[in-house]
């Protein structure tokens, strides 16, 4: 079936300073040492030697699947899918592996982490964890991959390639040398050591189903993308972004933007949208090194908010590379406030 959107029945998040989906809209916090404890998040055998990012994703997926009340296990294994977004997930590991090759030779590479030189390996364990044989797809567009993952999942379900999909994003912090402003070849913000500057770590997962079959406990979502050429961002932004967002924008748009030409042009256009349509725009500061976690984290956080009636929300992400994506959410009434209204 094709409705162009998916219902969200479960949420899972693992991130420093975040205790659950209800905290997901809080400003990103630095990751203190030991913030993630494998024995707590992933009790059992076989996880200890996985790279941390793979553990974050598995832990978030367990939370999302559990939050959906076992619905994932009820789906036949060949109808289960996963779409996982990554950007910097393997960057620090790749640097470590490469330095080992340079300094000591490839024979000295650690056997446990070497397979993760293939970036889709971070999502690979998800299939074994949840017995997913429909598909396990990794997407990696700069910044927008998490929202691309929603769109890819919507399309895959519409095409009959799966019935239930885990949509996720996972990041690991860049190494200190990679996250230093002097090491970046592209635009930087002044907040070099902020979590937005390549130090994001964690994972988010949404348990998604076709709205006609599933329980839209949190609501429904859809996403679409566009491209804003950085070299022509100022002149093209209005036409490109107006076509992306449409002429009936949601009441609130959370915009993940850096200070690049694309981000600056998008911010100016959103200013006008506020003036003309009364849209509440929440700017979430980002950088060229930010990674793809925050846009999907905003989606999760907006779904976790409680309302007495359905509300429309949007998340827009624009990378300095020119990739732009927009997720539209209809957040279902939920929680004590909604029950109070029913009563």
């Amino acid at each position: 079936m094709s409705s162009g959107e998916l219902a969200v029945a479960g949420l899972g998040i693992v991130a420093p300073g975040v205790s659950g989906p209800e905290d997901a809209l809080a400003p990103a916090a630095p990751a203190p040492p030991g913030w993630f404890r494998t024995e707590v998040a992933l009790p059992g055998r076989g996880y200890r030697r996985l790279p941390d990012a793979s553990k974050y994703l598995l832990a978030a997926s367990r939370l999302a699947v559990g939050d959906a009340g076992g619905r994932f296990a009820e789906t036949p294994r060949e109808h289960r899918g996963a779409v996982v977004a990554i950007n910097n997930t393997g960057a620090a590991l790749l640097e470590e592996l490469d330095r080992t090759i340079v300094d000591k030779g490839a024979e000295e590479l650690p056997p446990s982490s070497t397979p993760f030189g293939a970036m889709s390996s971070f999502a690979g364990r998800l299939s074994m964890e949840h017995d997913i044989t429909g598909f396990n797809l990794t997407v990696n567009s700069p910044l927008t991959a998490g929202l691309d993952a929603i769109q890819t999942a919507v399309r895959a379900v519409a095409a009959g390639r799966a019935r239930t999909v885990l949509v996720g994003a996972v990041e690991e912090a860049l190494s200190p040398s990679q996250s230093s402003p002097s090491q970046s070849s592209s635009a930087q913000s002044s907040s070099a050591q902020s979590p937005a500057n390549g130090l994001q770590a964690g994972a988010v997962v949404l348990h998604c189903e076709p709205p006609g079959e599933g329980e839209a406990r949190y609501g429904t979502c859809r996403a679409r993308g566009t491209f804003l050429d950085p070299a022509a961002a100022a002149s093209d932004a209005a036409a490109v972004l107006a076509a992306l967002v449409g002429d009936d924008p949601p009441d609130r748009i959370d915009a993940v933007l850096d200070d690049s030409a694309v981000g600056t042009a998008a911010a100016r256009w959103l200013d006008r949208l506020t003036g003309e349509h009364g849209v509440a725009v929440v700017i979430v500061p980002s950088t060229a090194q930010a990674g793809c976690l925050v846009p999907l984290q905003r989606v999760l956080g907006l779904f976790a908010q409680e309302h007495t009636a359905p509300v429309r929300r949007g998340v827009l992400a624009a990378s300095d590379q020119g990739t732009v994506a927009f997720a539209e959410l209809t957040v279902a009434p939920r929680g004590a406030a909604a029950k109070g209204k029913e009563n």
Partner: protein
Amino acid sequence: MNPSDGDRRAVITGLGTISCAGTDVDAYWDGLLAGGGEPVEVPMPHLNMRAKKMYLVDRAQVPAEPSHHAGAALGTGPRLAVAAAGQALADAGLEPGACGDVPVLLGVEMGNMDVQETRRSAGDPVWTPLAPTAAVVGAAIGSRAAVTSVGNACSATGYALAIALDMIRAGEAAAVLVGGAEGITRVGLGAFNRLGAADPVRCRPFARDRAGTMFGDGSAVVVLEAAGHARRRGAEPYAELAGAAWSCDAYHATAPDPSGDQIVRAMTEALADAGMSGSDIGCVIPHGTGTPLNDVVESRALHRVFGERTRELPLFSLKAMIGHTTGAAGVFACLTATLMLRHRRSPANVPIDQDPECDVWLPQDRAVPLQEPAVMVNTYAFGGNNTSFVVREFTGDAEGAP
């Protein structure tokens, strides 16, 4: 472009490629007929490993531009992709300035890794996005549509082609630029050395003495288009992407499931998606990497899908000629299948001493005519991420339209 009406079969109307076998489509086909490229020592410092060869584009043929995008230095992968994309659009008769509503879907895993590794060796490390390639191509062709990068390792472009197929069928786009590009990666080479999966001699899929795979760089790009749209603008399709399917082993981080159950399912469902049976297939381009277990498992799976006919069904072992182009492997195979259909034959395979456990037919002494006008392609990746798809002759008859 109006994608919302007409014949939504997905046809291939443009091809572009640059690889060790040739720097345009005609040269590539001639290169395959001549036996493909030869591996060479990788021109990367600090290559401290045993197997250090790849199938490489002649370095003099690697475009120098674009050297940067949005301030980020670009390696060979994005530059090769822009060159191949330009060829594909020109071949399809689409001007770069008229591509505003053409989405870009690229399968790229380690696209810009060579920039980081080269700078690291020089003591001047730099961070760049790992996968900027799709955005670079989007800017080069003037796209204002969705630009998406798929990173499923060695099956990335199998997935990208299937996504594009779904977009065409759903009326989401009238034409999609689909491709892949990879450059050199020292860490990729080193990792495969460490895993015992890197052949120091050449890429020898299905050979008795195969010792792992050998990488290749390059780019292949195709224009996938709704048949009705192509017809209206007078474009002549090469072939049709008739069906595609996905599966996942859910078995092991790197090794394939020895049962082959999920790769059988991908092949079977790709045939069903195309409305075809095994007897309709004239050739298979296998995933065939040269890693010992993969080739045996795939050979056995082919028998389960094609039965007794397997021994009479020609396989074209593409990676023996251009190496394993990882994220780009699927679209290289798609482009090759399209050329096979155009020329009605499968090139002779690189001669090997074939492993008897790989009981498949690899014609080695001559090109063979296609008995049936359809080619199946398999792509597999770490984590057991599998795709199969079917490229067939396009008849122009709309009966097969979904």
